[in-house]
């Protein structure tokens, strides 16, 4: 019964993916993509990966979906012109054949995976106590493979530098996005007044729960970013100017604190990014809090895009 559910879910996911590619209208493609993201999150639950499911919903379905819908609506004008450059039938057929070949090879590789499967689940659980956290995924992200996570927060900051560097010279340091003028009494403004306290509570809860249950700084950060964007979209608050020092230090605070804790580990626990046993949970939560704020700011600003206007006094 549950296998049937998995099969149907998989088929719908693949069908939606095909629709993303073949839909005539670019906007329809993006909407199909958002629906696809939600269903993939369901697949993650079926794979016993609640942490991933939360991330998928918040980051891929939510933030990336929003980003792509915004881009699609702005590019609508030239959609038809681009679509006119469609490749010939022969090329498409050949591409389909090769894509099937690659997918078939991958399918073969999946079916040929060794049995019993090698796994680090036992090693991860056995090494949980010294990290002080109860969620093995958080332990992997913040202790066993903390370097990847550290570099990843740097990747996010760097992506933001890259996005900002696309601004024309004269707008450098200005505010991203257009000034929003939504109806102050409209439903969006209403939502933007009611939701932020709830969003903050949910983000903090996700972070705190992440130590022992599914959740963590990335999921919480995505929700905080979404809340912030809602307030900006409703016109209740303006996007910040990108030259602000407070903003910039906020963006790097997460990775910098992570680095500081990492280097302190060399003296306190004999290795970079090792935590002294008694302090492990406190340090991990502290780093997660800073990361939550930095990730939220960075994700929000990534969605707002490069600076587009400069304040005229």
């Amino acid at each position: 019964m549950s296998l049937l559910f998995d099969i149907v879910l998989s088929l719908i996911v693949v069908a939606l993916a095909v629709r993303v590619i073949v839909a005539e209208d670019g906007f329809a493609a993006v909407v199909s993509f958002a629906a696809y993201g939600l269903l993939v999150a369901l697949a993650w639950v079926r794979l016993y990966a609640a942490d991933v499911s939360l991330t998928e919903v918040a980051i891929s379905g939510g933030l990336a979906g929003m980003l792509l819908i915004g881009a699609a609506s702005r590019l609508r004008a030239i959609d038809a012109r681009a679509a006119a450059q469609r490749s010939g039938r022969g090329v498409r057929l050949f591409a389909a054949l090769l894509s099937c070949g690659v997918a078939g090879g991958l399918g073969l590789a999946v079916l040929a995976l060794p049995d019993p499967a090698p796994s680090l689940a036992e090693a991860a659980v056995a090494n949980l106590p010294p990290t002080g956290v109860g969620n093995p995924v958080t332990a992997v992200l913040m202790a066993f493979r903390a370097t990847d996570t550290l570099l990843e927060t740097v990747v996010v900051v760097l992506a933001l530098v890259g996005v900002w560097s696309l601004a024309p010279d004269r707008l450098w340091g200005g505010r991203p996005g257009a000034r929003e003028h939504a109806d102050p009494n409209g439903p969006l403004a209403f939502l933007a007044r009611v939701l932020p306290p709830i969003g903050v509570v949910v983000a903090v809860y996700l972070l705190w729960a992440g130590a022992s249950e599914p959740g963590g700084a990335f999921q919480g950060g995505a929700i905080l970013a979404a809340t912030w964007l809602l307030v900006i979209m409703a016109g209740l608050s303006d996007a910040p100017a990108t030259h602000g020092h407070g903003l910039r230090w906020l963006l790097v605070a997460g990775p910098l604190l992570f680095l500081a804790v990492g280097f302190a580990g060399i003296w306190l626990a004999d290795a970079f990014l090792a935590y002294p046993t008694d302090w492990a949970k406190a340090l991990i939560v502290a780093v997660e809090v800073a990361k939550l704020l930095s990730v939220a700011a960075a994700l929000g600003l990534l969605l707002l895009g490069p600076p587009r206007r400069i304040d005229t006094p």
Partner: protein
Amino acid sequence: MTAAEIFGLCGAALVGVGVYGLVIAPEPLRKLLAFNLLGGGIFLLFGAVARRGAGAGLGGDPVPQALVITGLVVAVAATALAVALLLRLFEASGDVSLRNDPPPAPEPES
């Protein structure tokens, strides 16, 4: 057939759909969507690998699951950078086609 195999095959199919879209779709935004489908398929493969490694009271191996979380964040950062580039290119040139740069003007050569 297990859930891991089903979603693993689903991931493989998504990779196929994604690469087809990347090669064929003429609009860059569609290519970006295809890239995200491709990425989603790959993450599902990680998920299938994780599910196969269930043990020690866990429903899945936490290491590949954590890798997916890292990968998802990197993928959204990449998408944001690409969207920003795309919109900036649209602003600067009014077109976002990725056709080849026009071949250099033929020079009279005697």
